[in-house]
């Protein structure tokens, strides 16, 4: 029995070792280093690092571009999030069942989610292309051609244009979440509510929404993470422009670290981004820890 136990211990250690080693070296170690590097001034690819304490974060607090970037991330979260979750909820509800349309849409709704973000970005750049894009052609078809413009190149329309793309990409994932949530609601509950005279919006508000609450909470946390970590979409579609009107935290981080070789400040931006994600998802969890409709019932 003794040797057997020792054999078991060796087996456990040996089987965990490769995964743990890779994960420790390429994930855990860099996470720790990130917090350390954010306390240094470190420019250029040299070994010269100067410890500056929290100076990077002080600079960040007064950085107008960072403030703008954060505001744009919050626009993605609040406006993009509301649109995405509203649309996803409505569509998940409409395809809950077995009609022909429902089955068709179940086949395709994840397409925008599974194709590369690079494809999404380039595709939508051509939707918005001012000389031969789909949007311009559509407006011309319905006689509104005079409203065609360079949406991505105009300060007032660039952010809304990227936001629409963000929603197009994100909505499928949330339809998936809500559909899974709807399937957990027993059919009898819905039927009972219908027999009691609750139908349409009333049934949705009184029965479906409260039962979907746990899924909604998860969806909101994913939305926080997704909206604060937008990168490829903005970087490829506008590079944060025009005039920083679409700059987000991660495109600014990339610019500081990899264009200006200001690695200390870039990493401080990464730590700040991480802190905002943690704070907001924690806040969401806290606010939504209980079903608000529960008290009324």
């Amino acid at each position, binding site marked *: 029995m003794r040797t057997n136990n020792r054999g078991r211990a060796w087996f456990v250690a040996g089987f965990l070792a490769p995964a743990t080693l890779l994960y420790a070296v390429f994930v855990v170690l*860099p996470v720790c280093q990130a917090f350390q590097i954010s306390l240094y001034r470190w420019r250029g690819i040299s070994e010269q690092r100067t410890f500056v304490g929290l100076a990077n974060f002080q600079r960040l607090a007064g950085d107008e571009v960072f403030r703008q970037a954060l505001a744009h991330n919050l626009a993605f979260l609040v406006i993009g999030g509301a649109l995405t979750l509203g649309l996803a909820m409505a569509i998940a509800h409409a395809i809950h069942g077995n009609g022909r349309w429902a089955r068709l849409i179940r086949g395709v709704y*994840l*397409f925008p989610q*599974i194709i*590369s973000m690079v494809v999404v970005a380039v595709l939508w750049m051509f939707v918005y292309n001012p000389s031969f894009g789909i949007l311009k052609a559509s407006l011309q078809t319905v006689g509104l051609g005079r409203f065609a413009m360079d949406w991505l190149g105009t300060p007032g329309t660039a952010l809304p244009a990227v936001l629409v793309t963000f929603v197009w990409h994100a909505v499928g994932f949330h339809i*998936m979440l809500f559909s899974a949530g709807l399937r957990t609601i027993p059919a009898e509950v819905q039927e009972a509510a219908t027999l009691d005279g609750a139908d349409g919006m009333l049934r949705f508000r009184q029965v479906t929404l409260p039962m979907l609450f746990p899924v909604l909470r998860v969806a909101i946390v994913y939305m926080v993470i997704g909206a604060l970590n937008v990168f490829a979409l903005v970087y490829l579609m506008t590079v944060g422009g025009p005039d920083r009107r679409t700059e987000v935290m991660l495109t600014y981080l990339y610019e500081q670290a990899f264009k200006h070789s200001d690695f200390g400040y870039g990493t401080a931006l990464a730590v700040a981004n991480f802190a905002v994600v943690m704070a907001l998802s924690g806040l969401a969890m806290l606010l939504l820890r209980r079903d608000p409709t529960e008290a009324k019932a």
Partner: protein
Amino acid sequence: MRQPRWRKLLRDGLVMAALAAFALTVVLPLVWVFVTSLKSSPEVFASPWSLPASPRWDNYARAWREAGIGQCALNSLIVTLATLAILLPVGSMAAYVFARYPFRGFRTLFGAFLGGMTFPLFLTIVPLFFLLQALGLFDSLEGLTLVYVAYSLPFTVFVMTGFFQTLPQELVESAMIDGCGHVTAFWKVMLPLARPGLLVVGIFNAIGLWNEYPLALVLVVSDEIRTLPLGVANLMMTEHYQSDWGALFAGLVIVMGPVLAVYWAFRDRIHDTMVAGALKG
């Protein structure tokens, strides 16, 4: 309380129209990319809706050879397959222990792996950039592969742990009574039984790796080892000057075509795995 019939019909009609509009919004842009990939540049400029006079398959040849998309596709294929070849055995071994061999420190280690499923990738991007340089792995497919393995481990370990928990324990016990050790029981009995789980985890990871952009952007600089997303993004920037739009759209089809085909073939299983991963609770 019953609604009149015409109101129900009207409502169903509106819902159907809205769903049709949604389906078109999803599918039409993708169809448009494909149609445009077969047009000549003047045709692209003429009208976005028109069909090509005759399909220009040579757009694909130009994208593949002259624009270097062929090399990029090969690089992406190598990185994706190499990552899976390391990830699946390494991830399964850890998952098997997590599922079947409770040990001290289990919660901490398993929690550390799961934590990687949600934390923002960009937190590590600067340290990773220097770590790979220090290890002599910067700007190499080997370095990118190892990083991809590490960042794919959390999801893989999570799903495979769940999968191993569903397999019957008696099979291992009877194998061990027959004289197999823990290691042999894993390779000979459990891993073959886990094939359905490995397949779906493999496909799911392959899609993500084929599509991956930010890590490759930072960790790869040489033209010859660009992956597909890097190649297409680069093509987009250079085509602004050369305006060979047909080749660029052919490049987009080369990136998304395989993903959509694989997704369509395995859509139910991919869907279920995504739900399981997303609602891990």
